[in-house]
């Protein structure tokens, strides 16, 4: 045998191979089977292999000694390089490349077996790993065609101590260096790393013992190298993964890989195909992150302040802008500090970025605080890694977006996401438009509100209607005007005016205040009226307020007011007339004043003919009575009028007012009672009754109107109006009291009410005009008074 001179590299390589083939562990002879397999892996034609075998002398020996083996390997190298197989060429050929042995099938098998523990450990993250974008082509490299590179046989199996030194030196060299570069305040991280790395090395030694251990070593190796690759904080290419493998690969040729990136790519591809979330943090990574967290903040539930985090991440040598973006993504609660979850997310993003991945616009679901360990239910299928990468995190986030609101709920921090905050503010801004009041609207003046007509139920219920009709019917018998009649004669021209205005106001007020049959709506009116005694202008308002029809008087078995004596007396009187019915509703006191002014005006205007005036007035009253139905039946009232009128004359104004009110009430009540029974004054009664519900309020107004008319002859137009009103009212048929549920009756009453409404509205406008005139008059009078009272009150 020619002496064989091998270079150091070759020497090492061959020795490794020899050891690989030395299944018997004799260190001398390579088993034939293994050698032949190896030779076959050289992808040489079998005859060449045979030739080689012959040349190296194994045929002669029958076995491969070390020297033969070496020669054979050299010859294989020669053959692979295309040179003719010559023994002479063994030493002559310089710079011969090392023989390349193609990865055989068993390598694939071993790789598969190695992959599984790998995949289990790595999770999908390996897919994320070190895969710079340009490496996507590696996918196409078939596994079976990976070729052992010369870089691989760097390990020298002979010195056990040296090989671990050599092999790891290449791969994880980046990691320890990285760690040194990535120095932190505490070197705990380094300490953590190095033992891990150290753990790898014993594996190397053991692996050299036999290929059996390769698988174990493979699995043992794969996580740490991978970890080291992604934890490297330098910009070195992720070449750390596979060089660590090469000791194993030397012993098992099948495991040798060409380049780290490609192998990594395969691994990654395998990984990513199994897992769809590229942002998921594996347990190892998570543990690593936690360890890193501890170095900064021993308390795992505490925070890392922003400044410390800034220093930490600045060591990663990413541009500040990207670090800033990473911070924005990972500081979920925007508090300027990182919790453990936030820190892990930030670290993860940094690692990804260092390995070439683009930063997502939004924090991926799997990196959300408190949700990192959750499995993504909706897995996003992983398309071509490179293209799909930037899309997949987005897809993941979009897939998770429906659940994000729920996540947001889980995360109780305030302002936990900008989107929620912004939507909130947007929502609030939109709602603010709703809350924008027109400040122009002046709040209703409470005083003015009083003046405004108080809405009263205009659509009375059936019972309401019945009552109103009852009241109407019964109003004929009672006429409260008699007491009122007595009053005006006592008043002077001016004061009479005021008094007449006041008096009805008084009576009205008293009537109102004492009435218990009025609705609450009218109570404020009453109170207003009572307040506005001295103001002539106000009483009309008060009376006007009364304009809306009051509710019908409620049925009472007997009159319960303090003035019930009179009432009862009247009742008795009326009942004696046989026209009264008990249980007549208390008549709204609004009625009394109305006839009174008229009657009072009448007598007043015709003071000397008082006695006659009354009948005169009463004669006129029938005229007016139709205008104001629901008024006391003057014909009947006349009988009473004499007496009460005389009494009224003697009494004081207020007393008369009260009495008038009282009398009017009972009178009216009596009237209403009587109507149903007696139709003596049917026409008048009917007229009154038909407008019963509406008449009481207008009565005082109208009466006063009458009084003013009489006082001031210019109010001639009123009677015509009143006549019109009368005509309107007379057209209304009387409604039998008994039937309440008659629809026709109700409709008719509704019609009547509407008509009365229009009438009252017109009346209202007239009264307004009158009020104005009166006010003018008053002012002029006051001026005159001032002039006449010269300087008395200087």
């Amino acid at each position, binding site marked *: 045998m020619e002496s064989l001179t091998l270079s150091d590299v070759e020497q090492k390589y061959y020795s490794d191979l020899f050891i690989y083939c030395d299944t018997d562990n004799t260190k001398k002879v390579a088993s034939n089977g293994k050698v032949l397999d190896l030779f076959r892996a050289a992808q040489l034609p079998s005859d060449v292999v045979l030739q080689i075998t012959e040349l190296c002398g194994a045929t002669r020996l029958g076995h491969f000694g070390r020297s033969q083996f070496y020669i054979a390997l050299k010859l294989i190298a020669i053959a692979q390089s295309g040179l003719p197989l010559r023994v002479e060429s063994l030493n002559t050929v310089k710079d011969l490349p090392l023989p390349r042995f193609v990865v055989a099938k068993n390598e694939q098998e071993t790789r598969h077996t190695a992959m599984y523990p790998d995949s289990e450990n790595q999770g999908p993250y390996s897919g994320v790993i070190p895969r710079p974008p340009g490496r996507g082509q590696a996918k196409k490299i078939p596994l079976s065609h990976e070729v052992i590179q010369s870089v691989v046989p760097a390990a020298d199996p002979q010195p056990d101590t040296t090989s671990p030194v050599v092999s790891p030196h290449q791969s994880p060299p980046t990691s320890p260096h990285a760690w040194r570069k990535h120095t932190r305040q505490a070197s705990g991280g380094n300490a953590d790393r190095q033992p891990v790395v150290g753990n790898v090395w014993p594996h190397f030694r053991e692996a050299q013992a036999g290929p059996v251990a390769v698988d174990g070593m493979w699995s043992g190796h794969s996580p740490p190298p991978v970890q080291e690759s992604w934890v490297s904080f330098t910009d070195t290419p992720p070449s750390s993964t596979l060089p660590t493998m090469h000791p194993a690969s030397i012993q098992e040729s099948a495991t040798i890989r060409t380049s780290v990136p490609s192998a990594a790519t395969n691994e990654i591809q395998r990984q990513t195909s199994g897992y769809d979330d590229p942002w998921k943090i594996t347990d190892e990574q998570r543990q690593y992150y936690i360890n890193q967290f501890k170095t900064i903040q021993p308390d795992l539930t505490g925070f890392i302040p922003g400044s410390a985090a800034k220093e930490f991440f600045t060591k990663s040598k990413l541009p500040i802008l990207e670090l800033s973006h990473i911070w924005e993504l990972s500081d979920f609660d925007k508090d300027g500090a990182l919790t453990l979850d936030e820190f892990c997310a930030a670290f993860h993003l940094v690692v990804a970025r260092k390995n070439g991945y683009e930063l997502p616009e939004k924090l991926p679901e799997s990196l959300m605080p408190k949700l990192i360990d959750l499995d993504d239910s909706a897995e996003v299928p992983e398309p071509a890694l490179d293209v799909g990468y930037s899309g997949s995190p987005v897809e993941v986030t979009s897939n998770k977006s429906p659940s994000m609101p729920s996540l947001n709920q889980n995360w109780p921090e305030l302002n936990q996401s900008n989107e929620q905050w912004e939507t909130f*503010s947007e929502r609030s*801004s939109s709602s603010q*438009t709703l809350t924008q009041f027109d400040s122009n609207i002046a709040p209703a003046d409470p005083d003015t509100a009083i003046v405004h007509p108080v809405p009263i139920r205009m659509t009375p219920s059936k019972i309401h209607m019945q009552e109103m009709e009852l009241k109407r019917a019964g109003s004929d018998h009672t006429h409260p005007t008699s007491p009122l009649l007595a009053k005006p004669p006592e008043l002077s021209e001016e004061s009479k005016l005021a008094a007449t205005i006041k008096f009805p106001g008084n009576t009205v007020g008293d009537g109102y205040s004492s009435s218990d049959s009025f609705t609450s709506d009218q109570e404020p009116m009453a109170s207003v009226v009572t307040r506005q005694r001295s103001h002539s202008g106000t009483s009309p308002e008060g009376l006007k307020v009364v304009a809306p029809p009051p509710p019908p008087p409620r049925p009472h078995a007997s009159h319960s007011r303090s003035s019930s004596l009179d009432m009862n007396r009247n009742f008795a009187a009326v009942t004696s007339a046989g026209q009264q019915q008990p249980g007549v509703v208390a008549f709204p006191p609004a009625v009394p004043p109305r006839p009174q002014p008229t009657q009072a005006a009448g007598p007043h205007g015709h003071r000397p003919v008082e006695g006659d005036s009354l009948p005169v007035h009463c004669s006129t009253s029938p005229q007016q009575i139709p205008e104001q139905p629901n008024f006391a039946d003057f014909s009947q009232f006349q009988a009473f009028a004499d007496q009460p009128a005389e009494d009224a004359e003697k009494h004081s104004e207020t007393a008369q007012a009260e009495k008038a009110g009282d009398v009017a009430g009972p009178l009216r009540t009596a009237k209403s009672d009587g109507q149903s029974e007696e139709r003596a004054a049917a026409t008048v009664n009917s007229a009154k009754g038909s407008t019963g519900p509406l008449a009481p309020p207008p009565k005082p107004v109208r009466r006063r109107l009458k009084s003013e008319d009489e006082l001031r002859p210019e109010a001639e137009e009123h009677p015509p109006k009143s006549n019109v009103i009368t005509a309107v009212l007379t057209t209304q048929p009387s409604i039998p009291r008994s039937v309440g549920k008659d629809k026709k009756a109700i409709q008719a009453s509704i019609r009547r009410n509407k008509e009365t409404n229009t009438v009252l509205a017109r009346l209202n406008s007239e009264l307004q005009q009158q009020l104005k005139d009166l006010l003018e008059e008053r002012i002029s009078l006051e001026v005159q008074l001032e002039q006449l009272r010269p300087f008395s009150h200087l």
Partner: protein
Amino acid sequence: MAVCIAVIAKENYPLYIRSVPSQNELKFHYTVHTSLDVVEEKISAVGKAMADQRELYLGLLYPTEDYKVYGYVTNSKVKFVIVVDSSNTSLRDNEIRSMFRKLHNSFTDVMCNPFYNPGDPIQSKAFDGMVSGMMVQVS
């Protein structure tokens, strides 16, 4: 719907300025610059009063025929200026306030980022996104 949004630092240099019409930006820059005078005047008008008595929202600084300028100043004398189009249906005061509130919140988030040095131009994508949401949508 602002036409231009600007963030001015305490020393009156812009930290962030962005306008919708890419052309004519210089006009908006000039507008913002002139509005600073009005802002200064308003914040100095308070005089002895403490900052918290002074409201952050300054309101309409001054109107021109084309647009209106609104101002807002933080307690650290960082000013936000919003220019809105006058032809736009008059934005309510509350809407302007809410825009300023959003701006302030986003600015606070930017400040909380340890990687942001106060005084640097604001390059946060989140801030950009928020401002884009407030700008007029130009088709």
